[in-house]
C-alpha cells in the first residue's frame, strides 16, 4: 500500500529503486512540505507520501461546490453549470441516491464521483504509451501529448472513470481527475477539498486517512458501516469513502477483487521473455534438425540470372 507498489518504471521510479539512500532522501526533500505538514504523522515515514482523499458520505450535503470548484480550477467548459455525469469536460460530479435504511426510513445520500486513483491502476497498466501515468505519489495523471486515443484505459478501468472526447476529430483527449497534481506539488490542496464547506472531503497521506477512517468507525459504530471503500478494492485506491449505508446501494462497484487486475497481466507479461527464448530455441532447433537432411535441389537461381547468362 505504499508508493513502492508503483509498477511504473518512470525515471523517478527507477532512481528510487536503484539508489535507496540518497535518491529517496532527495525525492522526499522535493515534496511540498507545506501540503503535508498539516497531516504528517511520525509513523508514515516508512510508507512514503501517498496523497489521498477521504470522502465522508455522511457529511456531504450535495451542495456541488466541489464539482464547480473542479471545473473552475481546471478551466473546463461550462464552469457555472452543475455537472450531472462524468464527461469529456467533467472530472467530478455529485450523484444523488435515495436509500431505504434498515429501519425503513428513506434518506438521501450524495456521492462525489471521480477517478479513484488506484494504487496499481488498470489504466496505467493498460496504456501502451505511458500517457496514463502513476505519479508515484498517489495521483494517477494523464499526459495528453503521448496519448494515442486507443481508449484501452477506458475499457480497462474497473470504475468506468476515464472519458473520451468523442466529438473531436483530430485531438481528442481522455479526461479524468488528476487530483490537481500540479497544485499539490506547489503545496496547494485539490480544488474540491479546498471548496468543500462541510469537511466531507479530507486530504492527506493515505495511511493517516485510513487510520482516521477506522478510528471514526470504531468510535461511532452506530453511524458508519464497517468498510472503508477503496482500502482493498483492486489492490487499494487513493480515494477512500466512509458511509453509513452499504456501498452497493450507492452505486459503488461491488465484488471487486482485492488484488489489482494489473498484477495478473503483469504475471503474463513477465513470462514473455521465456516465451520468446523458448519459441526461438524450439523453432531454430527444429529448423536446424530438418535442414540437415539434404534439401531438394531447388530452383535457387533467379530466372533473370539464367536469362543473363544466355546472352
Amino acid at each position: 500500500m505504499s508508493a513502492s507498489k508503483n509498477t511504473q518504471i518512470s525515471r523517478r521510479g527507477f532512481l528510487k529503486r536503484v539508489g535507496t539512500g540518497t535518491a529517496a532522501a532527495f525525492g522526499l526533500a522535493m515534496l511540498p512540505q507545506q501540503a503535508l505538514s498539516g497531516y504528517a504523522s511520525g509513523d508514515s515515514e516508512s510508507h512514503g507520501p501517498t496523497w489521498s482523499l477521504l470522502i465522508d458520505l455522511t457529511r456531504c450535503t450535495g451542495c456541488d461546490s466541489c464539482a464547480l470548484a473542479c471545473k473552475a480550477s481546471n478551466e473546463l467548459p461550462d464552469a457555472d453549470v452543475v455537472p450531472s455525469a462524468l464527461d469529456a469536460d467533467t472530472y467530478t460530479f455529485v450523484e444523488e441516491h435515495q436509500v431505504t435504511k434498515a429501519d425503513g426510513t428513506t434518506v438521501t445520500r450524495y456521492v462525489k464521483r471521480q477517478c479513484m486513483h488506484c494504487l496499481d491502476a488498470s489504466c496505467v497498466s493498460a496504456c501502451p504509451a505511458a500517457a496514463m501515468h502513476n505519479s508515484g505519489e498517489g495521483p494517477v495523471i494523464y499526459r495528453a501529448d503521448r496519448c494515442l486515443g486507443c481508449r484501452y484505459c477506458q475499457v480497462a478501468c474497473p470504475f468506468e472513470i476515464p472519458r473520451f472526447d468523442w466529438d473531436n476529430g483530430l485531438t481528442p483527449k481522455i479526461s479524468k481527475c488528476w487530483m490537481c497534481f500540479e497544485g499539490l506539488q506547489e503545496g496547494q490542496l485539490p480544488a474540491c477539498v479546498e471548496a468543500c464547506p462541510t469537511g466531507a472531503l479530507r486530504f492527506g497521506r493515505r495511511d493517516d486517512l485510513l487510520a482516521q477512517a477506522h478510528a471514526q468507525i470504531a468510535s461511532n459504530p452506530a453511524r458508519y458501516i464497517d468498510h472503508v471503500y477503496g482500502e482493498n478494492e483492486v489492490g487499494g485506491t487513493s480515494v477512500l469513502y466512509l458511509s453509513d449505508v452499504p456501498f452497493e446501494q450507492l452505486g459503488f462497484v461491488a465484488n471487486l477483487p482485492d488484488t489489482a487486475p494489473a498484477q495478473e497481466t503483469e504475471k503474463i507479461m513477465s513470462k514473455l521473455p521465456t516465451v520468446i527464448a523458448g519459441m526461438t530455441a524450439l523453432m531454430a532447433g527444429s529448423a536446424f534438425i530438418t535442414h540437415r537432411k539434404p534439401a531438394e535441389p531447388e530452383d535457387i537461381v533467379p530466372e533473370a540470372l539464367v536469362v543473363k547468362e544466355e546472352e
Partner: protein
Amino acid sequence: MELLASPALWLVLALSVAIPVLFIVGARRLALRMVDRPTAMTASLPKFLPAPRLRAPSLRWLLTRGLLLTLIGTGLGIIMLRFVYGLSAVTNLSDQFAWGLWISFDVMCGVALAAGAFVIAATVHIFRLERFEPLVRPAILTGLLGYLLVVAGLIVDLGRPYNVWRPLFHWQHHSVLWEVGVCVATYTTVLLIEFLPVVLEKVNHFEAVTTRLPTVKLTQLLKKVSIAFVIMGVVLSTLHQSSLGSLWVLMPTKVSPLWYSLYLPVFFWMSAIAVGLAMTIVESTLSSKAFNRGLETHLLVDLAKAAAVVLAIYLAVRAIDLVVRGAWPLMFEPTLQAASFWAEIGLGVMLPIVLFSIRPLRQRHGVLFLGAVLIVVFGVVLNRFNVSLIGLLPYTGQIYTPSWMELVVTMTLVSLGVIAFGLAAKYLPVFHEEEHEASR
C-alpha cells in the same frame, strides 16, 4: 442527427455516387474506342500487363465494379467525416462502450485471420514439410494484407493516430497493448520482407536482362536469411496472437465468465493456429475458383487433419478451464451469451472436428470448404466477438450495436484487401507454376 444537416455528409454521398457513375461511363467509352482502334491503344501499354479485353465490358462487369466503387467511395467518405467530426459522428461508441466493431473485427479478427502466414511458413520452412510449399506465398500475401488492414483499421479507430509510433519509443513493458502494437509493427515488416522475393522475382524477370539492378543480389541475400525471418515471424506471431487474449485479462469484472480466463492468451494462440490452417483452405479454394487453377486438394486435406487435432486439444483445454473455474453452469442459462457460446463451440469447434476427422468426409471438396469456413466464421471470428463484445454486454448493458457507417468502413477495408489480393495474385508470381505458366 446534426450530422444529417452537415454539408460534408452530402458531399460524401454525392461523391460516392458520382465516382462509380463516372467510372462506368468512362470504362464503357474507353472500351468502345479500343474496339475501334485496338493496336494504337494497346501498343503503349507496358508488356507485363495482360492484353486488355477488346470488347465492351458486360453489364455485370460494370455493375460489380460500380457497386464496389460506391462502397469504397462511401467508406472513404465516412473515414473523412470521422476525422472532421470525431468518432461520435460515425460510430455508436460511448464512454461505456469504448471499443466496438473496428476493434472487435478489424483488429481482433483481422490479426487472427492473418495467422495462416506464420503457420504455413513454419510448416514449410521450419518443419520442412516441403510439399506445402505451393501454399506459402498465398498465405504470406493474405497475412501481409491482413496486417495492413489491421493497421488501417487502427488508424481510423485511434483518436490520435499520429501518435501511433510512440509506443515504439516509450517502452511500456507492463502494457499488453504496447506489446501487441510493437509486435504488429515488427511482424508487418517481417511479412513485407518475406513477401519481397515475390515482388523481386517479377522485377528481376523484366529488368535484370537489360540493366544490372541490385535486385538479383537482394533476392539471393533474402534467400539466405529467410529462415531467420520465418523464425522471427513465428515468435512474433505467438507473442501477439496470444497477447490479444491477454488484453482482456485486465477486465475480470467485465468479461463474462464464459470467456474470462487467465488462460485467454493460450486459447487465442491455439485458435489462431487452427484458423491459420482453415484460412489457408478457404483462400486456396476460393482463389482456385477465381483464377481457374488446379486445387492442391491433397495438401488441403492434410491441413484439415492438422486443424482437427489442434481444435480437439483446444476444445479439451477450454472444457477443463470452464469446469475448473466453475463457470460451466452459465452455459445452460437462457442468455444471449450462452447461445453465442454454443454457436462458437458447437458450430465452430465440435462440428469441424467431426467433419475433419472422418476421412471420406474430409476428402470431399465441399466438406473441406464447409469445415474450414465454420472454423473461420464461428470458431474464431465469433470467439473474438464473444470475448470483446458479446461477453461484455451483461456488464455494460445492451448499449452498443455498430452503426451502418461503422459497417461500411469495415466492409470497405475488407473489399480493399480482397481487391489487393486479386491484383497481386494476377500480376505477381504468388501462385505456383501451374497457374503462372498458364497465364503466360
